[in-house]
Protein backbone atom coordinates (compact mmCIF):
# COMPACT_ATOMS: atom_id res chain seq x y z
CA UNK A 1 0.00 0.00 0.00
CA UNK A 2 1.35 3.46 -0.81
CA UNK A 3 2.26 5.45 2.24
CA UNK A 4 0.89 8.93 2.63
CA UNK A 5 3.36 11.78 2.46
CA UNK A 6 3.08 15.53 2.36
CA UNK A 7 2.66 16.63 -1.26
CA UNK A 8 6.01 17.89 -2.51
CA UNK A 9 4.96 19.53 -5.74
CA UNK A 10 1.88 21.64 -5.28
CA UNK A 11 0.22 23.21 -8.29
CA UNK A 12 0.50 26.98 -8.46
CA UNK A 13 -3.23 27.46 -7.89
CA UNK A 14 -2.89 26.45 -4.27
CA UNK A 15 -0.46 29.22 -3.29
CA UNK A 16 -1.57 31.46 -0.48
CA UNK A 17 -4.33 33.96 -1.11
CA UNK A 18 -2.34 36.96 0.19
CA UNK A 19 -0.12 36.72 -2.86
CA UNK A 20 -3.05 37.76 -5.00
CA UNK A 21 -4.38 40.64 -2.96
CA UNK A 22 -2.33 43.71 -2.30
CA UNK A 23 -4.49 44.89 0.56
CA UNK A 24 -5.78 41.81 2.35
CA UNK A 25 -9.04 42.24 4.21
CA UNK A 26 -8.97 41.99 8.00
CA UNK A 27 -10.61 38.58 7.85
CA UNK A 28 -7.82 37.21 5.70
CA UNK A 29 -5.22 38.72 7.98
CA UNK A 30 -6.99 37.09 10.92
CA UNK A 31 -7.01 33.70 9.24
CA UNK A 32 -3.35 34.00 8.41
CA UNK A 33 -2.40 34.91 11.96
CA UNK A 34 -4.37 31.95 13.32
CA UNK A 35 -2.74 29.65 10.78
CA UNK A 36 0.68 30.99 11.77
CA UNK A 37 -0.06 30.34 15.41
CA UNK A 38 -1.06 26.74 14.94
CA UNK A 39 1.92 25.88 12.77
CA UNK A 40 4.30 27.59 15.16
CA UNK A 41 3.66 24.85 17.71
CA UNK A 42 6.95 23.19 18.29
CA UNK A 43 9.27 26.18 18.25
CA UNK A 44 10.03 26.92 21.89
CA UNK A 45 8.82 30.40 22.78
CA UNK A 46 11.36 33.11 23.47
CA UNK A 47 10.75 36.44 25.04
CA UNK A 48 12.72 39.61 25.42
CA UNK A 49 13.60 40.61 28.96
CA UNK A 50 12.34 44.16 29.45
CA UNK A 51 15.40 46.36 29.15
CA UNK A 52 15.66 49.11 31.72
CA UNK A 53 16.98 51.83 29.42
CA UNK A 54 14.29 51.76 26.77
CA UNK A 55 11.57 52.08 29.38
CA UNK A 56 12.78 54.90 31.54
CA UNK A 57 12.36 57.61 28.94
CA UNK A 58 8.68 56.76 28.55
CA UNK A 59 7.66 56.48 32.14
CA UNK A 60 7.72 59.35 34.58
CA UNK A 61 7.74 58.04 38.16
CA UNK A 62 5.38 60.69 39.55
CA UNK A 63 2.78 60.17 36.88
CA UNK A 64 2.50 56.45 37.35
CA UNK A 65 2.84 56.47 41.13
CA UNK A 66 -0.91 55.97 41.48
CA UNK A 67 -0.63 52.70 39.55
CA UNK A 68 1.93 51.10 41.79
CA UNK A 69 1.40 49.24 45.04
CA UNK A 70 -2.27 48.64 44.40
CA UNK A 71 -3.90 45.31 43.74
CA UNK A 72 -5.45 45.19 40.27
CA UNK A 73 -7.87 42.59 38.99
CA UNK A 74 -7.25 41.67 35.38
CA UNK A 75 -9.78 41.33 32.59
CA UNK A 76 -9.35 40.76 28.92
CA UNK A 77 -11.41 42.90 26.59
CA UNK A 78 -12.38 42.35 22.97
CA UNK A 79 -11.87 45.34 20.63
CA UNK A 80 -14.15 48.34 21.19
CA UNK A 81 -16.39 49.39 18.35
CA UNK A 82 -16.51 53.09 17.45
CA UNK A 83 -14.64 54.33 20.46
CA UNK A 84 -13.03 57.68 19.89
CA UNK A 85 -10.62 59.48 22.19
CA UNK A 86 -12.14 62.86 21.40
CA UNK A 87 -15.51 61.99 22.90
CA UNK A 88 -14.24 61.29 26.39
CA UNK A 89 -16.25 64.04 28.09
CA UNK A 90 -19.41 62.75 26.47
CA UNK A 91 -18.65 59.22 27.64
CA UNK A 92 -18.05 60.52 31.17
CA UNK A 93 -21.47 62.12 31.21
CA UNK A 94 -23.22 59.04 29.91
CA UNK A 95 -21.40 56.74 32.29
CA UNK A 96 -22.27 59.04 35.19
CA UNK A 97 -25.93 58.95 34.28
CA UNK A 98 -25.91 55.19 33.88
CA UNK A 99 -24.29 54.59 37.24
CA UNK A 100 -26.69 56.89 39.05
CA UNK A 101 -29.60 55.09 37.44
CA UNK A 102 -28.21 51.68 38.38
CA UNK A 103 -27.57 52.72 41.95
CA UNK A 104 -31.07 54.12 42.33
CA UNK A 105 -32.51 50.79 41.25
CA UNK A 106 -31.71 49.67 44.72
CA UNK A 107 -28.58 47.69 44.10
CA UNK A 108 -26.50 49.67 46.55
CA UNK A 109 -27.74 52.64 48.54
CA UNK A 110 -24.96 54.99 49.50
CA UNK A 111 -26.29 58.13 51.03
CA UNK A 112 -24.33 61.30 50.44
CA UNK A 113 -21.92 59.91 47.87
CA UNK A 114 -21.15 62.20 45.04
CA UNK A 115 -20.19 60.29 41.92
CA UNK A 116 -17.41 62.05 40.21
CA UNK A 117 -16.61 59.91 37.25
CA UNK A 118 -13.76 60.89 35.06
CA UNK A 119 -12.73 59.16 31.92
CA UNK A 120 -9.30 60.33 30.97
CA UNK A 121 -6.81 59.26 28.43
CA UNK A 122 -3.15 58.59 28.98
CA UNK A 123 -1.87 62.14 28.72
CA UNK A 124 -4.10 63.69 31.34
CA UNK A 125 -3.66 61.94 34.62
CA UNK A 126 -5.75 62.87 37.63
CA UNK A 127 -4.34 65.66 39.70
CA UNK A 128 -2.95 65.06 43.16
CA UNK A 129 -5.44 66.98 45.23
CA UNK A 130 -8.92 65.78 44.53
CA UNK A 131 -11.72 65.92 47.04
CA UNK A 132 -13.21 62.79 48.36
CA UNK A 133 -11.96 59.24 48.37
CA UNK A 134 -11.28 57.39 45.17
CA UNK A 135 -13.74 54.51 45.25
CA UNK A 136 -12.87 52.76 42.09
CA UNK A 137 -10.18 52.99 39.44
CA UNK A 138 -10.05 51.18 36.19
CA UNK A 139 -7.82 51.51 33.18
CA UNK A 140 -7.51 50.08 29.73
CA UNK A 141 -4.19 49.44 28.20
CA UNK A 142 -2.49 47.89 25.27
CA UNK A 143 1.27 47.51 25.10
CA UNK A 144 2.91 46.07 21.99
CA UNK A 145 -0.29 44.44 20.83
CA UNK A 146 0.76 44.28 17.19
CA UNK A 147 -0.54 40.83 16.43
CA UNK A 148 -4.07 41.90 17.29
CA UNK A 149 -3.90 45.46 15.97
CA UNK A 150 -3.09 44.44 12.43
CA UNK A 151 -6.04 42.08 12.14
CA UNK A 152 -8.88 44.41 13.09
CA UNK A 153 -10.49 46.99 10.86
CA UNK A 154 -10.31 50.74 11.52
CA UNK A 155 -13.64 51.05 13.34
CA UNK A 156 -12.29 49.06 16.24
CA UNK A 157 -10.02 50.28 19.00
CA UNK A 158 -7.83 47.62 20.54
CA UNK A 159 -7.34 47.86 24.27
CA UNK A 160 -7.24 44.23 25.28
CA UNK A 161 -6.11 44.60 28.88
CA UNK A 162 -8.32 46.06 31.57
CA UNK A 163 -7.24 46.52 35.18
CA UNK A 164 -9.64 47.39 37.95
CA UNK A 165 -9.21 48.30 41.59
CA UNK A 166 -12.17 48.77 43.85
CA UNK A 167 -15.51 47.24 44.66
CA UNK A 168 -16.62 44.33 42.53
CA UNK A 169 -20.13 45.78 42.12
CA UNK A 170 -18.73 48.95 40.60
CA UNK A 171 -16.62 46.93 38.19
CA UNK A 172 -19.69 45.01 37.13
CA UNK A 173 -21.77 48.15 36.53
CA UNK A 174 -19.07 49.93 34.57
CA UNK A 175 -18.31 46.78 32.64
CA UNK A 176 -21.95 46.46 31.65
CA UNK A 177 -22.03 50.04 30.38
CA UNK A 178 -18.93 49.51 28.25
CA UNK A 179 -20.26 46.25 26.89
CA UNK A 180 -23.53 47.88 25.90
CA UNK A 181 -22.03 51.00 24.42
CA UNK A 182 -19.10 49.59 22.52
CA UNK A 183 -20.18 46.01 21.79
CA UNK A 184 -17.19 44.44 23.48
CA UNK A 185 -16.86 41.66 26.02
CA UNK A 186 -15.04 41.51 29.33
CA UNK A 187 -13.80 38.26 30.72
CA UNK A 188 -11.68 37.71 33.79
CA UNK A 189 -8.08 36.90 32.96
CA UNK A 190 -6.80 33.92 34.90
CA UNK A 191 -3.07 33.26 34.85
CA UNK A 192 -2.11 29.59 34.78
CA UNK A 193 0.89 28.04 36.49
CA UNK A 194 2.84 27.88 33.24
CA UNK A 195 2.60 31.65 32.74
CA UNK A 196 3.29 32.34 36.40
CA UNK A 197 6.58 30.47 36.16
CA UNK A 198 7.45 32.58 33.08
CA UNK A 199 6.69 35.72 35.05
CA UNK A 200 8.84 34.52 37.94
CA UNK A 201 11.79 33.95 35.62
CA UNK A 202 11.40 37.21 33.70
CA UNK A 203 11.02 39.34 36.83
CA UNK A 204 13.90 37.66 38.61
CA UNK A 205 15.99 38.44 35.56
CA UNK A 206 15.34 42.18 35.86
CA UNK A 207 18.27 44.17 37.18
CA UNK A 208 17.33 46.12 40.27
CA UNK A 209 19.35 48.58 42.31
CA UNK A 210 17.80 47.56 45.57
CA UNK A 211 15.23 44.92 46.35
CA UNK A 212 12.10 45.97 48.18
CA UNK A 213 10.59 42.55 48.74
CA UNK A 214 11.68 38.94 49.06
CA UNK A 215 11.01 36.60 46.20
CA UNK A 216 8.16 34.37 47.25
CA UNK A 217 6.27 31.49 45.68
CA UNK A 218 3.04 29.90 46.81
CA UNK A 219 1.92 26.44 45.73
CA UNK A 220 -1.43 24.79 46.27
CA UNK A 221 -1.41 21.07 46.92
CA UNK A 222 -4.51 19.33 45.62
CA UNK A 223 -5.61 17.10 48.44
CA UNK A 224 -8.85 16.43 50.24
CA UNK A 225 -10.60 17.63 52.36
CA UNK A 226 -8.81 20.98 52.40
CA UNK A 227 -6.04 22.01 50.07
CA UNK A 228 -2.65 22.65 51.56
CA UNK A 229 -0.56 25.71 50.71
CA UNK A 230 3.21 25.67 50.55
CA UNK A 231 5.08 28.94 50.62
CA UNK A 232 8.72 29.29 49.68
CA UNK A 233 10.60 32.54 50.24
CA UNK A 234 14.03 33.27 48.81
CA UNK A 235 16.32 36.19 49.27
CA UNK A 236 16.04 38.17 46.01
CA UNK A 237 19.78 38.32 45.45
CA UNK A 238 20.03 34.53 45.73
CA UNK A 239 17.24 34.19 43.22
CA UNK A 240 19.06 36.54 40.84
CA UNK A 241 22.27 34.59 41.31
CA UNK A 242 20.45 31.35 40.46
CA UNK A 243 18.94 32.94 37.39
CA UNK A 244 22.30 34.24 36.22
CA UNK A 245 23.79 30.77 36.46
CA UNK A 246 20.97 29.38 34.34
CA UNK A 247 20.72 32.17 31.80
CA UNK A 248 22.72 31.72 28.60
CA UNK A 249 21.48 33.94 25.78
CA UNK A 250 21.73 37.64 26.58
CA UNK A 251 18.58 39.68 26.08
CA UNK A 252 16.24 36.73 25.64
CA UNK A 253 14.47 34.25 27.86
CA UNK A 254 13.89 30.73 26.55
CA UNK A 255 11.57 27.96 27.67
CA UNK A 256 14.51 25.74 28.70
CA UNK A 257 15.91 28.43 30.98
CA UNK A 258 12.57 28.94 32.69
CA UNK A 259 12.14 25.18 33.17
CA UNK A 260 15.67 24.83 34.51
CA UNK A 261 15.19 27.74 36.92
CA UNK A 262 12.02 26.21 38.33
CA UNK A 263 13.52 22.71 38.41
CA UNK A 264 16.41 24.00 40.52
CA UNK A 265 13.94 25.36 43.05
CA UNK A 266 11.93 22.14 43.00
CA UNK A 267 14.95 19.89 43.51
CA UNK A 268 16.28 22.10 46.31
CA UNK A 269 12.94 21.84 48.07
CA UNK A 270 12.77 18.09 47.46
CA UNK A 271 16.21 17.57 48.92
CA UNK A 272 15.19 19.25 52.17
CA UNK A 273 11.58 18.25 52.55
CA UNK A 274 11.07 15.24 50.27
CA UNK A 275 8.06 16.90 48.65
CA UNK A 276 7.67 17.02 44.87
CA UNK A 277 6.63 20.60 44.21
CA UNK A 278 6.28 19.75 40.52
CA UNK A 279 3.16 17.76 41.39
CA UNK A 280 1.52 20.84 42.91
CA UNK A 281 0.10 23.94 41.29
CA UNK A 282 1.88 27.29 41.37
CA UNK A 283 -0.62 29.84 42.59
CA UNK A 284 1.26 33.00 43.43
CA UNK A 285 4.57 34.59 42.49
CA UNK A 286 5.89 37.64 44.25
CA UNK A 287 9.09 39.48 43.35
CA UNK A 288 10.45 42.99 43.80
CA UNK A 289 9.17 43.91 40.34
CA UNK A 290 5.58 42.72 40.70
CA UNK A 291 3.45 40.04 42.22
CA UNK A 292 0.79 37.97 40.49
CA UNK A 293 -1.88 35.55 41.65
CA UNK A 294 -3.48 32.88 39.53
CA UNK A 295 -6.97 34.41 39.95
CA UNK A 296 -5.83 37.35 37.85
CA UNK A 297 -4.71 39.74 40.56
CA UNK A 298 -1.57 41.71 40.10
CA UNK A 299 0.40 44.29 42.03
CA UNK A 300 3.18 46.23 40.35
CA UNK A 301 5.92 47.45 42.63
CA UNK A 302 8.54 48.90 40.37
CA UNK A 303 7.94 51.74 37.93
CA UNK A 304 11.03 50.89 35.86
CA UNK A 305 9.60 47.64 34.55
CA UNK A 306 5.97 48.72 34.36
CA UNK A 307 5.92 48.60 30.57
CA UNK A 308 7.50 45.16 30.51
CA UNK A 309 4.95 43.75 32.94
CA UNK A 310 2.08 45.32 31.01
CA UNK A 311 3.46 43.98 27.74
CA UNK A 312 3.40 40.43 29.02
CA UNK A 313 -0.08 40.85 30.47
CA UNK A 314 -1.30 42.31 27.18
CA UNK A 315 0.07 39.23 25.44
CA UNK A 316 -1.85 36.98 27.80
CA UNK A 317 -5.02 39.01 27.31
CA UNK A 318 -4.70 38.84 23.53
CA UNK A 319 -4.10 35.12 23.76
CA UNK A 320 -7.27 34.73 25.80
CA UNK A 321 -9.32 36.76 23.34
CA UNK A 322 -8.09 34.71 20.45
Amino acid at each position, binding site marked *: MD*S*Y*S*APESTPSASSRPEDYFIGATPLQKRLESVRKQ*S*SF*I*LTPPRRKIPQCSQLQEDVDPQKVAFLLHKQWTLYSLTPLYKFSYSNLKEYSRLLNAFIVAEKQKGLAVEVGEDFNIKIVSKSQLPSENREGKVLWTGWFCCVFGDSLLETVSEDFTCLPLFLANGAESNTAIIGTWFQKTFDCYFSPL*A*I*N*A*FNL*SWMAAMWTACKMDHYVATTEFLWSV*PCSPQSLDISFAIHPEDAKALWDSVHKTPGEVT*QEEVDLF*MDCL*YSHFHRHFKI*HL*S*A*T*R*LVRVSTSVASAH*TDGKIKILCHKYLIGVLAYLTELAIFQIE
Partner: protein
Amino acid sequence: MSVLRPLDKLPGLNTATILLVGTEDALLQQLADSMLKEDCASELKVHLAKSLPLPSSVNRPRIDLIVFVVNLHSKYSLQNTEESLRHVDASFFLGKVCFLATGAGRESHCSIHRHTVVKLAHTYQSPLLYCDLEVEGFRATMAQRLVRVLQICAGHVPGVSALNLLSLLRSSEGPSLEDL
Protein backbone atom coordinates in the same frame (compact mmCIF):
# COMPACT_ATOMS: atom_id res chain seq x y z
CA MET B 1 16.97 -3.23 34.64
CA SER B 2 14.22 -5.03 32.85
CA VAL B 3 12.96 -3.53 29.65
CA LEU B 4 9.46 -4.18 28.38
CA ARG B 5 9.45 -6.03 25.10
CA PRO B 6 6.35 -6.66 23.02
CA LEU B 7 7.01 -10.21 21.93
CA ASP B 8 8.96 -11.82 24.74
CA LYS B 9 5.99 -13.89 25.98
CA LEU B 10 3.40 -16.05 24.32
CA PRO B 11 -0.06 -14.52 24.01
CA GLY B 12 -2.84 -15.83 26.20
CA LEU B 13 -5.86 -17.39 24.54
CA ASN B 14 -8.35 -14.64 23.64
CA THR B 15 -6.73 -12.28 26.17
CA ALA B 16 -5.80 -8.66 25.67
CA THR B 17 -3.73 -6.85 28.27
CA ILE B 18 -3.28 -3.12 28.63
CA LEU B 19 -0.82 -1.34 30.89
CA LEU B 20 -1.70 2.14 32.16
CA VAL B 21 1.27 4.12 33.45
CA GLY B 22 0.76 7.37 35.32
CA THR B 23 1.14 9.16 38.64
CA GLU B 24 -2.56 9.87 39.19
CA ASP B 25 -3.76 6.71 40.92
CA ALA B 26 -7.39 7.72 41.27
CA LEU B 27 -7.74 8.63 37.59
CA LEU B 28 -6.08 5.44 36.40
CA GLN B 29 -8.33 3.37 38.64
CA GLN B 30 -11.43 5.08 37.27
CA LEU B 31 -10.29 4.62 33.68
CA ALA B 32 -9.58 0.94 34.35
CA ASP B 33 -13.06 0.48 35.80
CA SER B 34 -14.64 2.16 32.78
CA MET B 35 -12.69 -0.07 30.43
CA LEU B 36 -13.69 -3.24 32.22
CA LYS B 37 -17.33 -2.24 31.96
CA GLU B 38 -17.10 -2.23 28.16
CA ASP B 39 -18.51 -5.08 26.10
CA CYS B 40 -15.66 -6.90 24.52
CA ALA B 41 -15.35 -10.26 22.81
CA SER B 42 -11.85 -10.79 24.20
CA GLU B 43 -10.99 -11.12 27.85
CA LEU B 44 -9.59 -7.79 29.07
CA LYS B 45 -6.82 -7.45 31.62
CA VAL B 46 -5.86 -4.00 32.88
CA HIS B 47 -2.58 -3.42 34.71
CA LEU B 48 -1.84 -0.16 36.52
CA ALA B 49 1.64 1.11 37.28
CA LYS B 50 2.96 4.31 38.76
CA SER B 51 6.16 4.11 36.78
CA LEU B 52 8.39 1.72 34.92
CA PRO B 53 10.32 -0.59 35.28
CA LEU B 54 7.79 -3.06 36.56
CA PRO B 55 8.89 -5.42 39.32
CA SER B 56 10.14 -8.61 37.72
CA SER B 57 9.01 -10.86 40.52
CA VAL B 58 5.38 -10.85 39.40
CA ASN B 59 4.20 -13.28 36.75
CA ARG B 60 2.24 -11.22 34.25
CA PRO B 61 0.83 -11.84 30.78
CA ARG B 62 2.21 -10.30 27.61
CA ILE B 63 1.37 -6.61 27.39
CA ASP B 64 -0.37 -5.58 24.17
CA LEU B 65 -0.76 -1.83 24.65
CA ILE B 66 0.90 0.70 26.95
CA VAL B 67 -0.86 3.99 27.65
CA PHE B 68 1.15 6.74 29.33
CA VAL B 69 -1.18 9.11 31.15
CA VAL B 70 0.20 12.64 31.50
CA ASN B 71 -1.61 15.12 33.71
CA LEU B 72 -1.22 18.61 32.26
CA HIS B 73 -1.66 20.09 35.73
CA SER B 74 1.49 18.51 37.09
CA LYS B 75 5.04 18.68 35.79
CA TYR B 76 5.85 15.70 37.97
CA SER B 77 3.69 13.41 35.88
CA LEU B 78 5.51 14.52 32.71
CA GLN B 79 8.91 13.88 34.31
CA ASN B 80 7.71 10.49 35.52
CA THR B 81 6.55 9.59 32.02
CA GLU B 82 9.85 10.61 30.48
CA GLU B 83 11.71 8.46 33.02
CA SER B 84 9.46 5.49 32.36
CA LEU B 85 9.82 5.72 28.59
CA ARG B 86 13.43 4.63 28.93
CA HIS B 87 12.34 1.19 30.09
CA VAL B 88 10.32 0.41 27.01
CA ASP B 89 11.89 -1.41 24.10
CA ALA B 90 11.94 0.44 20.77
CA SER B 91 9.82 -2.16 19.00
CA PHE B 92 6.91 -1.31 21.27
CA PHE B 93 6.59 2.04 19.53
CA LEU B 94 5.30 0.41 16.36
CA GLY B 95 1.71 1.11 17.31
CA LYS B 96 1.61 -0.42 20.77
CA VAL B 97 2.22 2.76 22.77
CA CYS B 98 -0.17 5.63 23.19
CA PHE B 99 -0.08 8.92 25.13
CA LEU B 100 -3.09 10.26 26.94
CA ALA B 101 -3.12 13.88 28.14
CA THR B 102 -5.63 14.74 30.82
CA GLY B 103 -6.60 18.07 32.35
CA ALA B 104 -6.59 20.21 29.23
CA GLY B 105 -10.13 21.38 29.99
CA ARG B 106 -9.11 23.47 32.97
CA GLU B 107 -6.68 25.85 31.28
CA SER B 108 -6.13 27.88 34.45
CA HIS B 109 -4.66 24.87 36.26
CA CYS B 110 -2.21 23.84 33.56
CA SER B 111 1.48 23.79 34.42
CA ILE B 112 2.63 22.21 31.20
CA HIS B 113 2.15 23.76 27.83
CA ARG B 114 0.14 21.54 25.50
CA HIS B 115 2.92 21.72 22.94
CA THR B 116 5.35 19.94 25.26
CA VAL B 117 3.19 16.84 25.19
CA VAL B 118 2.64 17.13 21.44
CA LYS B 119 6.41 17.22 20.99
CA LEU B 120 6.85 14.20 23.24
CA ALA B 121 4.31 12.17 21.27
CA HIS B 122 5.90 13.30 18.03
CA THR B 123 9.39 12.25 19.20
CA TYR B 124 8.12 8.79 20.02
CA GLN B 125 6.02 8.58 16.85
CA SER B 126 2.97 7.58 18.84
CA PRO B 127 -0.59 8.89 18.87
CA LEU B 128 -1.61 11.47 21.45
CA LEU B 129 -5.14 11.41 22.82
CA TYR B 130 -6.76 14.12 24.89
CA CYS B 131 -9.33 13.33 27.52
CA ASP B 132 -10.44 14.90 30.77
CA LEU B 133 -10.45 11.74 32.83
CA GLU B 134 -12.27 13.47 35.66
CA VAL B 135 -15.41 13.87 33.59
CA GLU B 136 -17.52 10.72 33.52
CA GLY B 137 -18.79 11.05 29.95
CA PHE B 138 -15.39 11.73 28.37
CA ARG B 139 -13.86 8.92 30.38
CA ALA B 140 -16.42 6.41 29.14
CA THR B 141 -15.83 7.44 25.52
CA MET B 142 -12.07 7.21 25.93
CA ALA B 143 -12.43 3.78 27.57
CA GLN B 144 -14.40 2.59 24.56
CA ARG B 145 -11.73 3.94 22.22
CA LEU B 146 -8.91 2.32 24.17
CA VAL B 147 -10.67 -1.03 24.18
CA ARG B 148 -10.94 -0.93 20.37
CA VAL B 149 -7.26 0.01 20.02
CA LEU B 150 -6.32 -2.72 22.47
CA GLN B 151 -8.19 -5.34 20.50
CA ILE B 152 -6.33 -4.32 17.36
CA CYS B 153 -2.96 -4.38 19.15
CA ALA B 154 -3.68 -7.83 20.55
CA GLY B 155 -4.39 -9.04 17.03
CA HIS B 156 -8.03 -9.88 17.68
CA VAL B 157 -9.35 -7.82 14.78
CA PRO B 158 -8.77 -9.65 11.49
CA GLY B 159 -7.15 -7.58 8.75
CA VAL B 160 -5.87 -4.69 10.89
CA SER B 161 -2.60 -4.69 12.78
CA ALA B 162 -1.16 -2.21 15.28
CA LEU B 163 1.20 -0.85 12.65
CA ASN B 164 -1.65 -0.31 10.18
CA LEU B 165 -3.57 1.60 12.78
CA LEU B 166 -0.56 3.74 13.61
CA SER B 167 0.00 4.79 10.02
CA LEU B 168 -3.72 5.55 9.62
CA LEU B 169 -3.72 7.76 12.70
CA ARG B 170 -0.56 9.57 11.70
CA SER B 171 -1.63 10.46 8.19
CA SER B 172 -4.73 12.21 9.52
CA GLU B 173 -2.73 14.56 11.72
CA GLY B 174 -2.18 17.11 8.99
CA PRO B 175 0.81 18.63 7.22
CA SER B 176 1.87 21.06 9.95
CA LEU B 177 3.68 18.40 11.97
CA GLU B 178 5.48 17.14 8.87
CA ASP B 179 7.42 20.39 8.64
CA LEU B 180 9.43 19.63 11.76
